[in-house]
């Protein structure tokens, strides 16, 4: 059943006040999953007092390498055995050339899966931007809070107490 949710975006002028905003939200009872910090540049992890990010990106290249190696072996061993024609006096399954193609296949698989992993773990692609402000890319720092309508007041109070520059709001339906 759909129920109404609110998004509140607070824009801060500098990292210091934004970090104060994060602290104020935490003190007001908002958890790590209730708000996001939006910036136009990568800040050192933990600059705003946020929790470290958990991800599974490192598994992607490993899986990709196995898939790539399997396909490369299929393309080398499988195809040569299906038509065992001796050329240049070399064995049908010649190790050095098979190693080259298998190596490239393994690396290609690992890299392709890493790219997929980066996109997936970044929670992209995202169809709409939701509540957003283009000034975030001009130096403002955004604190985006998703909450129930009755929590909105405390989110706004927390951000105002920390010295927010501007606040924007949006209402949306949660499935």
């Amino acid at each position, binding site marked *: 059943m759909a129920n109404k949710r609110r998004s509140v975006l607070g824009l801060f002028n500098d990292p210091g006040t934004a970090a104060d905003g994060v602290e104020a939200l935490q003190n007001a009872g908002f958890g790590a999953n209730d708000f*996001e*910090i*939006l*910036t*136009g*540049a*990568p*800040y*050192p*992890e933990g600059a*705003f007092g*946020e929790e470290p*990010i958990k*991800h599974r*990106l*490192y598994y992607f*290249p490993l899986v990709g390498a196995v898939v790539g190696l399997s*396909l490369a072996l*299929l*393309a*080398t061993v499988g*195809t*040569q055995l*299906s038509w065992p*024609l001796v*050329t*240049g006096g*070399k064995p049908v399954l*010649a190790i050095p*050339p*098979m190693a*080259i*193609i298998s190596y*490239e*296949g393994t*690396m*290609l698989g*690992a*890299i*392709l899966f*890493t*790219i997929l992993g*980066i*996109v997936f*773990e*970044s*929670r*992209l*692609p*995202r*169809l*709409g*931007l*939701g509540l*957003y402000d*283009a000034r*975030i*890319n*001009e*130096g403002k720092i955004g604190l985006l809070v998703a909450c129930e309508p009755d929590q909105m007041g405390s989110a706004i109070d927390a951000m105002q107490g920390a010295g927010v520059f501007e606040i924007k709001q949006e209402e949306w339906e949660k499935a």
Partner: protein
Amino acid sequence: MQERREKTESQINTDLLSAMLDNHLWFWIVLAGLGLVILAGAAAAGYMFDRGLGVTGLNRPVFWGFFITNFVFWVGISHAGVMLSAILRLAQAEWRRPATRAAEVLTIFSLATALIFPLLHTGRPWRVFYWVGLPILPYDLSRGIFQNVRSALLWDPSAIFTYLTSSTLFVFIALVPDLAVARDRTTGWRRALYATLALGFRGNARQWRLQAIAGILLSALILPVFVSVHSIVSWDFAAAVSVEGWHQTIFAPYFVIGAVHSGVSGVVTAMILMAWLFKWQDYIRPEHFDALGRLLIVVATAWFYFFFIEFSFGLFSQEPSEIALRQTQVFGQPWGWMYLTFIMASYFIPVPLWMFRRVRRSLVLMFWTTILVNIGMWLERFLIIVPSLMRKQGLTFVWGDYNPSPIEVLLVAASFAVVLGGVLLFSKIFPLIPIYDAKEGKYIEAEIQVGRRTVPAVIREE
């Protein structure tokens, strides 16, 4: 080292998007000029396809001439991207920031250009499908047989395909945050394009963290591919037992380090052009060329060491055919003056000059010395390929010569226009200096007081 001017995020956006959003008359004039050279090259290629390879200077026994030289040269230039971008990212070298994307983009265009030359060399490129085929499907469905993985002709495309795909995706992933900036700064069709390509990137902590890890992880994964590509290109030669001067165990590392030498020089040339044309002197500063100059001294000397080993160990065996080849290369004409130009241009002129700080910090001198390196490195590939093939057979009556035809000269000129035009067009559509990287540099750098000196300090994340 730190000579930056303090800029706001908004100023950085304006400066680095200026190449994309501002209209410069010179841009269209240069692009039109390059377009004309490309058209001339296309006409030459069309003529060659119509008349056959007889219109080139290729003839028995020299069947690898300008086309294969140019192929090896552009594969070499393509090594700039990963060498600079990946190694400097992994080493967290602070001065990498303005250089990485230019290096990666140069990789993509030079690699794509390199791929054209073996196709041209076949004379009938549409038939290449029959030797390469698709990765899984049989290359000739009517007979049900597959491509021959034992042929070196398949190793090159597989390595280059892997490198080109990886480099292109690497550039794309690193572009996503900058595409979000372009999305927020543009309107109309441009906004629609950048919004689609930015994939909905908003710059939350998770996305930035993943970006940082992606830079390191992809660098680490692409580095081994980069080494394999030029190694495999070198094996096109080294695996040929019958050609004097080619069958060398040292060729793979020798080619890789030579590629790095010409590639890094190519990036320096491109960066200087960017600083001049787009007036990015606040971002591409003398300190960057100082660091790149020092790197080039190390790379050039390592390359010279391999060159010396390759040359001297060939002579050490006292084999008459090897000595005859070296005599042709060094003393035979016109090869002799080319050899002298190659060795002077690649090492003995630039490296002593780079020893001086004043030279390393001079854009004009760095521009010309790096151009010189690439003239030398092009000649190096030419001198490896042609004299060896001329003396391929033991009997003198089958020795031959090679005179490139205007068709080949035009196609080589067009390849330079394709790479330059490609990078120039890229700069019109995408930011050529990573915007977010420039901003990050601003946030993690500071000045600290040590006694009576103020020195730069950089925050480095583990």
